[in-house]
């Protein structure tokens, strides 16, 4: 039955990816992208790639989101489209 969980995780990731691109406010997109990176880290762990999951969590969700947020702090949150 675990493949149902994986399937749900994969579709949830596709949903977060689209949401991160389509949302109007940059801050929301950055946070959703952080969630997207963390979901990807779960998929890697499910696939057995423990080192890649660890790195993706630390580097992708951790450092990447912090860099995005610190830039959005500097340039304001609203986007035209």
């Amino acid at each position: 039955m675990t493949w149902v969980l994986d399937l749900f995780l994969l579709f949830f990731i596709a949903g977060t990816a689209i949401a991160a691109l389509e949302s109007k406010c940059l801050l929301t997109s950055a946070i959703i992208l952080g969630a997207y990176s963390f979901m990807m880290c779960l998929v890697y762990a499910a696939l057995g790639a423990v080192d890649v999951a660890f790195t993706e969590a630390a580097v992708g969700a951790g450092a990447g989101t912090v860099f995005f947020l610190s830039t959005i702090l500097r340039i304001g949150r609203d986007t035209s489209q």
Partner: protein
Amino acid sequence: MKKFAILVTVLVGAILVWGATDFPQWGDPNSPASTHVSDRYITEAYSASHVPNLVSAILADYRNFDTMFETTVVFTAGTAIFLILRLPLGPLARRRNSKHPQAERHPLPRDPILEMACRILFPPTHLFGLYVLTHGHYSPGGGFQAGVILGASFILLAIGFDLRAILARFPEGLFKPLAALGVLLYVGLGVLCLLLGGNFLDYEALRVLAPGISSAMIRSHGILIVECGVTLTVGSVIFGIYANLVSRGNHEGGL
């Protein structure tokens, strides 16, 4: 523009699916990817370097040239961001510098609860980073992850307190040379192996320095030294990038 983008994306997607039709079945143990070279990695890695974590063994022993250039990529990114953002810029760019007042943040009120929380969290995060570094051989972890965790512990303090307060304790004069030191440690070890008669980054050549140790253990120690170099570089560069990005180069404002 949108229609062009959709067209390109669908075209790329269609070609990829067409290419993927004759992939070997997902997950079968004797697909070419799993039988040609990787089975030799799995069977020989432990006897060669006594490192149970096969990923760390391959990362820092079989393909350590990749990891050396990986550390150089991180160092290059740190230097490039320093070059682009760190004020004052060269005279050419200063003449056309920021005409637009950027969103100046009013100084945040100091929040004692947040500061105490960060103060309490900093030592365990640091300790965990060092644990991940030293146990990269036995459990998932290693140079990159340890470096990011150490960098993140400094970023945590910079968010809790003020960037200037943390830069007083971990100044630019310290984390820039540390980043260079990490890469020098890695490349220096390779050159040392070269001078001792082996090929570049061939840890076997280090046995001349420590005759008593078996070749597997010397490779294990070589991997540890290399991981320390990676941790130094990644940790200081991640904090350096954060310090430059959040304050747009003048190291004053920021979160």
